[in-house]
């Protein structure tokens, strides 16, 4: 269990250092089952930090989201470090970003937070209804205890955990400078049964499914923007000269967009599940990404976000790579 006091103390310590510019963590949301990612710049703001089962967002996305505009003449850019609090799944994003050299290892200070799972807001809303007051959630054994509008309610952990947490194999951060709590035991395993289930469909059924899903897409690009691995300065989808994917929202362009994104994430997606959570029209994006994750594991024995020394999947090759269908 994470002691929030200790978490805040650690944060204050880190922020008090001369060479740290900002710290990314979580704070209480303004309503319901929300928490909000927060970027604090001063140790006095550390009291806002929390860690509880509402903290579903991935702070690693915010390391690369930060823009670096040119500084006025005579000023030097601020090259101090960024501190970030990460759960186990989030730390895989940091590992993969380091593998791809998005930033140098000494440019970040990683505060690892061992996690025992987050609550899926939709499941909580269905069980307990919605509220405009912030909800407090605590974990107690195999239950989650909610304080909603002053009342205490309980729900079984198994029914409220986010899907990604049910199969979590990395509750403890894989890269960290300091841990803010003790490591926890691994409880999950991933056999990719959901991918196997989907593959049982016929090609016509598969396309029918995806056509319906992709025709809902409004191309808000939340899935791309929240993804810790989507940090290209100019994304191919929004490139205008030349234009690859048109901006119109018909099935053809929407399908092309999702295929492009899943393709660019193959061997890189660390399965934080944020893309699917943020989608306003409920497109099951993880279904595509998990298929690629499974295939990459099977074909190339590679899992992203685990080993900082690994080489990115598509930047290397093995002369014995499979080539089953090649004539």
């Amino acid at each position, binding site marked *: 269990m994470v002691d929030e006091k200790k978490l805040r103390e650690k944060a204050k310590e880190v922020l008090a250092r001369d060479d740290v510019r900002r710290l990314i963590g979580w704070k209480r949301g303004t309503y319901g089952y929300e928490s909000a990612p927060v970027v604090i710049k001063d140790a006095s703001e550390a009291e806002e930090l929390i860690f509880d089962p509402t903290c579903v967002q991935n702070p690693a996305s915010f390391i690369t989201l930060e823009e670096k505009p040119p500084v006025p003449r005579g000023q030097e850019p601020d090259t101090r470090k960024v501190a970030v609090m990460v759960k186990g799944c989030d730390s895989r994003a940091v590992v993969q970003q380091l593998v791809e050299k998005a930033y140098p290892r000494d440019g970040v200070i990683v505060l690892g937070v061992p996690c025992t799972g987050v609550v899926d807001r939709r499941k909580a809303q269905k069980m307990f209804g919605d509220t405009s007051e912030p909800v407090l959630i605590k974990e107690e054994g195999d239950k989650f205890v909610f304080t909603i509008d002053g009342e205490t309610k309980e729900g079984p952990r198994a029914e409220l955990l986010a899907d990604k947490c049910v199969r979590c194999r990395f509750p403890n951060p894989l890269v960290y400078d300091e841990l803010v709590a003790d490591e926890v035991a691994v409880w999950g395993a991933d056999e990719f049964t959901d991918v196997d289930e989907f593959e049982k469909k016929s090609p016509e059924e598969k396309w029918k499914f995806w056509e319906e899903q992709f025709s809902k897409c409004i191309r808000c690009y939340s899935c791309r923007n929240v993804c810790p691995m989507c940090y290209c300065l100019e994304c191919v989808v929004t490139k205008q000269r030349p234009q690859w994917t048109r901006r119109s929202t018909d099935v053809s362009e929407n399908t092309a967009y999702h295929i492009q994104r899943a393709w660019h994430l193959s061997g890189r997606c660390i399965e934080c599940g944020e893309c699917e959570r943020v989608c306003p029209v409920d497109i099951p994006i993880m279904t595509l990404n998990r*298929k690629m994750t499974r295939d990459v594991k099977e074909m190339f024995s590679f899992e992203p976000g685990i080993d900082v020394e690994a080489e990115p999947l*598509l930047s290397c090759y093995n002369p014995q790579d499979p080539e089953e269908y090649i*004539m």
Partner: protein
Amino acid sequence: MSEEFEPNIVAFLCNWCSYAGADLAGTSRMHYLPNIKIIRVMCSGRVNPLFLVNALQQGADGVLISGCHPGDCHYLEGNFYARRRFMLMRKLLEHVGVDPGRVNMSWVSASEGAKFKEVIDETVAKAKEAGPMEQFRRRQLNW
């Protein structure tokens, strides 16, 4: 005249091996099917898998990427990278419901004119079996 469907295939051929192999098929007067439209690239490793998606969007019924044999790439490693990429892209398209027969890859060297003809025959046959590409084709093609 039979109304048999004639697929449109876009073929990305690497300059040093496959394109030369296609050239050889031509100069040897081997008749190969006219369904393919060839785009010459310097190396199969240059082919971005998104070209494939774009081609399918624009109405191609099948795509072929052809390069030098592994180990013989003119640029030493390009085809190894291409192999990894297209293995994955094919799986992804299959997951979306696109017939895998639309995505084809081959190793054709500069002396393999006859093999090139066979590769085209097989590619066209697979695309014919898969039928016209309707799934995520741009609908506004014939306004």
